[in-house]
């Protein structure tokens, strides 16, 4: 079973909820009237796309339908699909690989979105790809976070740099980077403590990690990934904004996409802040993290 099918399967629920509604909407009505657009907007909102983004998408669809003189309601779906693809499919959607090793990836996000799990899966993904991966356990705050990452490091069989719980996360980041250089690692992935983006002291701590890394290796971190839980609503936009202001988020990892969660908020994030989705978590298994592919994503969503 190819990746495409897996993604399709795991998005089955999303599809049921999302596409079936559009299908019934489109098939029930033959002619396009105001209600069709209104319902289209409702469906997008229900997928957590956000009112502002949904309204704009629907406006675009309305305009294009007019331009192309589409008269049958069945012609609307491809237009919406095209719009979503256009919105999500721009920007650099791959992990930035720095020309000089190690590439440093900093993983940030609010509490409970699945940062540590994502890092475990990411380590596996890149190890399978033949990269030498090293992990930095800079979540020194949450009880047993280091242990959790350690379990993953063992599972994936990569090295882990850690300090004691409660120690300075910037120091862990620094040591990890030095170790990554010394051991010739290709990829260093640094875990950070979950923090609400509104806590200024914790965001300062994050900035410090960024500064320390940059000093130890100019240009690092080369990639700052914000992990977003697909069940999250409109607050994700605030998260992306404030994390972006603190450490310059370069990409989104959308996790828990296998749930009934629709993950539509990435459209909102892309729309408001132009941050691309780079990886998606589609299950609980070790293999269930994948590079984000717009075509597959939209296809799976609409097929």
């Amino acid at each position: 079973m190819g990746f495409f099918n897996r993604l399709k399967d795991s998005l089955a629920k999303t599809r049921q909820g999302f596409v079936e509604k559009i299908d019934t909407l489109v098939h029930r009505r033959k002619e396009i009237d105001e209600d069709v657009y209104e319902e289209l907007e409702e469906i997008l909102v229900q997928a957590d796309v956000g009112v502002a983004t949904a309204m704009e998408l629907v406006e675009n669809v309305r305009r294009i339908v007019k331009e192309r003189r589409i008269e049958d309601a069945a012609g609307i779906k491809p237009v919406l699909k095209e719009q979503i693809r256009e919105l999500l499919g721009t920007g650099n959607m791959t992990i930035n690989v720095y020309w000089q090793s190690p590439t440093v990836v900093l993983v940030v996000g609010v509490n409970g979105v699945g940062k540590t799990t994502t890092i475990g899966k990411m380590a596996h993904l890149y190890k399978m790809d033949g990269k030498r991966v090293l992990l930095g356990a800079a979540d020194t705050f949450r009880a047993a976070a280091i242990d959790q990452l350690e379990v993953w490091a063992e599972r994936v069989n990569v090295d882990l740099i850690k300090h004691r719980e409660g120690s300075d996360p910037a120091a862990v980041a620094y040591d990890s980077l030095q170790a990554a250089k010394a051991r010739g690692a290709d990829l260093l992935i640094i875990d950070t403590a979950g923090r609400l983006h509104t806590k200024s002291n914790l965001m300062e701590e994050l900035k410090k990690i960024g500064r320390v890394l940059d000093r130890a290796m100019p240009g690092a971190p080369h990639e700052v990934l914000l992990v977003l839980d697909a069940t999250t609503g409109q607050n994700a936009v605030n998260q992306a904004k404030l994390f972006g202001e603190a450490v310059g988020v370069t990409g989104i990892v959308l996790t828990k996409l296998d749930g009934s969660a629709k993950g539509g908020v990435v459209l909102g994030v892309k729309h408001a802040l132009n941050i691309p989705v780079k990886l998606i978590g589609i299950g609980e298994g070790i293999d269930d993290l994948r590079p984000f592919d717009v075509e597959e994503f939209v296809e799976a969503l609409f097929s």
Partner: protein
Amino acid sequence: MFANLAERLQDTFKKMRGKGRLTEADVNEALREVRLALLEADVNFKVVKNFVARIKERAVGQELLSSLNPAQHVIKIVHDELTTLMGGSNSKINLAPKPPTVIMMVGLNGAGKTTTSAKLANLLRKQGRRPLLVAADVYRPAAIKQLQVLGEQLKIQVFAREEQQDPVAIGRAAVEKAAVGGFDIVIIDTAGRQEVNEELMAELEAMNSYLQPHEILLVVDAMTGQTAVNVAETFNRRLELDGVVLTKLDGDTRGGAALSVRSVTGKPIKFAGVGEKLDALEPFHPDRMAERILGMGDMLTLIEKAQENFDAGQMARMQKKIRSMEFTLDDFLEQISHVKKMGPLEQVLGMIPGLGGLKKLKDIQVDEKELVYVEAIIRSMTPDERQEPERVLNGSRKRRIARGSGTSVQEVNRLLKQFEQTKKMMRQLMDMEKSMKKGGKIPKMPFFN
């Protein structure tokens, strides 16, 4: 984007001043704004639909109270309805007639079950109970360890069986242990899943039927979007919940999930997680949540916090001083120390209606460290200087103060300017309060004048 519903409604109603009655067209226009605000707050779509329909029924044709303008009137109705819908405040745990009381914590991955379990144990212990925490999340790596660490921090015993993979068996053994060990509350931290799936539900149902918990609490992340409804519905259907705990309410989420969950399950939201510290679990306040969802700040919390930290006599004295413009740098110093006690400044500011919107908060950006300098500067002044800085202070005195406080003359000047501004602002706040009292009807919304 939709910073403040109140402001927007005011705009909507500007054109229809002087009317004595709300027409259907008025209400429709206002409800469009209400609908958008609720959707932006992540309230589930269907819930919004029903809610708006109800409001409409209530609002159309109503006579306007003389003290309220149309916008205020609609907001009042919306606010009242929202509060009613969210239910009275009830944060009681169902206690078993014969201890131990068994509490099961359920929810999706990452909602905060483990932390909330520990916080709840801490809260119940404060109420004189003897809780036992049970680590029954056998799936997530280090979940048991996490609970053990939290238990250690709180000095609350944690029951764990690392070799045991069956959560039902763990639960049974824990209840037995509680009975002999003199524990009267057993809090079971169960495993989550990424989604509501059959496997999880079957496991939780098994625990439910074997352990017969007296209370099943669903832990829900306040940031959850439209899916909150599905999650809550499924858990409630399969497990018959007793209540909900809303977590991560200390962020800037509007928390529409609260309304969604409440309206589909009909079960009370009992507690709210409001911080990372282990005492940051509070009883849930429906009225405050209503204001938050509507983007109206959290005035009540602010007032309560202020009350905790200021005694009435002090307040009265301070008010008198402000009114008569006798407010001095000494008083300012005193205020600073009180404000500091109220918690992180940003949090305090965020609770003021109108300031809740991030954009505005950004401009203020209070640096707590700055307060240290402010204190140092004031403490380097003589009593005279503190009383009447604008009269006494000259260049050489300012230089002395700067040296004494380890700052510069510029910083001293800046402080003096800030102080003058603060004085003015306080006057304004005072006036606002006065006009609020005159309005009388809606004391929770001091931003209307």
